[in-house]
């Protein structure tokens, strides 16, 4: 069936993109100026030959570990093999080496929670606002909402985060401004701690989604089939939600999928501001600690997440609009 062929083509593209992306992240460590091993193993300046010897051995061990002497394709293959099996490399600290995988296991869920909550909040607020402002396009409510949205999306997320953290968190004390509580320790507490970060991350998205939906809805509401639906005598609410919303939501769907990239970036900043133990914080710590192996793995994980989300959005497209399903199946 042709639909399967179209899907197959997309899977192929997916594989290609994944390959190139992982290639890039695997190469990161070689791009540092100077010898990466010197960065990972802190130089202990000493004249003591014994200490120098130990340091040299450590460096050699690390070099072998990372396969830095091997040609790049071989190193990439090793890296990829390890990665797929869940071995994300190690942290090279002065006293110990911890597997990065542990960190990812603990940090990734936190970041995912933050992004998912933010996306949900953004959609839950933006969709009704978009529908109502489109329905009352030109009214004072519409103009006021649009202006507010515009202002909101012009505020950098870290600025908003800092202000919320201070004024709501510290000054008013309504919500905690830093830290994280695991859901198993109590859902209410979990959400209380996630509240300000979620709002910060969602704020700009609300504005973007609302304006997007409004713009598409206003166009859709002028189409003939909306007039036809109205002429059947059904309520305006039904016309809006059951007839107008669905065709207008396509762009919103695409953008909310593509937006995951912005969400990921935003999550990094938000986690830093609100001290959430997510991937963002892990990356920050890795950079500060010069743990480039760990950095590589984090970047790879985030990139793959992003690619998979985009792919899913692309496939979901077909479900929403039967015309596209039909067009793809017959093309």
């Amino acid at each position, binding site marked *: 069936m042709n639909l399967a062929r179209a899907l197959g083509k997309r899977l192929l593209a997916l594989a290609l993109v994944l390959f190139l992306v992982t290639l890039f992240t695997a190469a990161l460590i070689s791009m540092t100026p100077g010898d990466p091993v010197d960065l990972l193993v802190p130089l202990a300046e000493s004249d003591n030959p014994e200490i120098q010897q130990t340091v040299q051995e450590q460096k050699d061990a690390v070099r072998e570990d990372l396969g830095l002497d091997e040609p790049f394709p071989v190193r990439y293959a090793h890296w990829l093999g390890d990665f797929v099996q869940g071995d994300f490399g190690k942290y090279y600290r002065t006293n110990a080496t911890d597997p990065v995988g542990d960190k990812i296991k603990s940090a990734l869920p936190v970041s995912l929670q933050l992004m998912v909550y933010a996306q949900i909040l953004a959609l839950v607020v933006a969709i009704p606002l978009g529908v109502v402002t489109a329905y009352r396009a030109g009214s004072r409510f519409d103009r006021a909402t649009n202006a507010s949205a515009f202002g909101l999306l012009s505020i950098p997320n870290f600025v908003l985060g800092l202000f919320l953290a201070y004024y709501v968190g510290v000054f008013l004390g309504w919500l905690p401004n830093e830290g994280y509580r695991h859901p198993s320790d109590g859902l209410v507490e979990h959400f209380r701690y996630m509240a300000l970060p979620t709002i910060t991350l969602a704020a700009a998205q609300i504005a973007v989604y609302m304006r997007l939906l409004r713009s598409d809805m206003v166009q859709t509401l002028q189409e003939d089939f909306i007039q*036809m639906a109205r002429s*059947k005598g059904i309520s305006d609410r039904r016309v809006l939600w059951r007839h107008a919303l669905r065709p207008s939501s396509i762009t919103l769907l695409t953008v909310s999928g593509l937006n995951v990239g912005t969400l990921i970036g935003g999550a990094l900043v938000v986690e830093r501001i609100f001290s959430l133990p997510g991937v963002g914080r892990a990356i920050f710590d890795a950079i500060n600690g010069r743990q480039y192996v760990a950095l590589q793995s984090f970047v790879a994980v985030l990139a793959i997440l992003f690619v998979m989300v985009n792919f899913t959005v692309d496939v979901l497209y077909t479900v929403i609009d*039967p015309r596209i399903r039909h067009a793809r199946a017959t093309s």
Partner: protein
Amino acid sequence: MSRSDDRVEVRAQDTDGARGAPIPRRRLLEIEDLRTQFRTHRGMVRAVDGVSFTLDRGRTLGIVGESGSGKTVLARSIMGLLPKRNVVRTGAVRYEGIDLLTTSPEQVRDLWGAEMAMIFQDPMTSLNPVQRVSAQITEGMRHHLRMDRKTADATALALLREVGIPEPKRRLRQYPHELSGGMRQRVMIAVALACGPKLLFADEPTTALDVTVQAQILNLLQREQRERDMAMILVTHDLGVVAGRADEIAVMYAGQLVEKAPTASLFANVRMPYTEALLRSIPVLDAPSHTRLQAIPGRPPDLVDPPSACRFAERCPYVRDRCRAEPPPLLEGEPGHFYRCWYPVGLSSPVTLRSQPTSGNSGGVR
């Protein structure tokens, strides 16, 4: 406003075979000096500028005019299917005695579908592209008639058969883009008829269709109208469409009615030069080849600031001084035949304003 259940009886009884035979019927629609204006940044556009007529059950009124004449806006103004903001309607639109212009929008909306319905011009864009055929038909029924799913689906199936769609069961499950143009229009007709309206608006129902299909659709409409004893307002730019299918034809120009007459009278004794020009511009099949098509030169007037005298004066081949000076009123020259012209076609002497014109069984006068 009660929904009478005597439709079934009427179907069998009151069918009028001979077109034009003056059998008295119930008056359905009375339009009195309807004006519709749109607020734009250029000013108030006077799309419909004082139209009056009446329509009885079972009768067909054809409204003819070029693009921009206001015919579509007129149909929508009567039904009330206009934007909420920046639109002003004055006058009276009486449906079964009740003035729709003074009723609340919710009550008017209750009429849509159940009492009056509209068929739109382009079935491709007028049907919801992501809704199946069955849902489009049953939506109105479930709302107005409170049918349950099974009954509604069965009725939809019957409707599809009635409008002549082959393999109706399969079609019910399909989406509009899977149907041909003619079938889509039939589906639209089914949707319009679903709740059994008494008044049907057909806004250029065949313009977007192939010529071969046009006749079929028009025949279908005519048959449905007869069987259901509906009144129909057929809006079109094509005189050929209304020629054999309307009881009465009203010609619109620049927002006004310029001629109104029973069909036979209109074609036999055309009075308004504009109508004459319209008739002349229809290509004739058996004319010698390379005959130039006759067009009406010029353009319709600006609706924000229409001329104070005759609006057709600029383009009229018979124009005289009086036409540019005084606006001609709509007068009933012969019984039932109204026109708006100082020097009508075919009359040797110019029209003079005399006593009050007779108002027959149809039509108000401006």
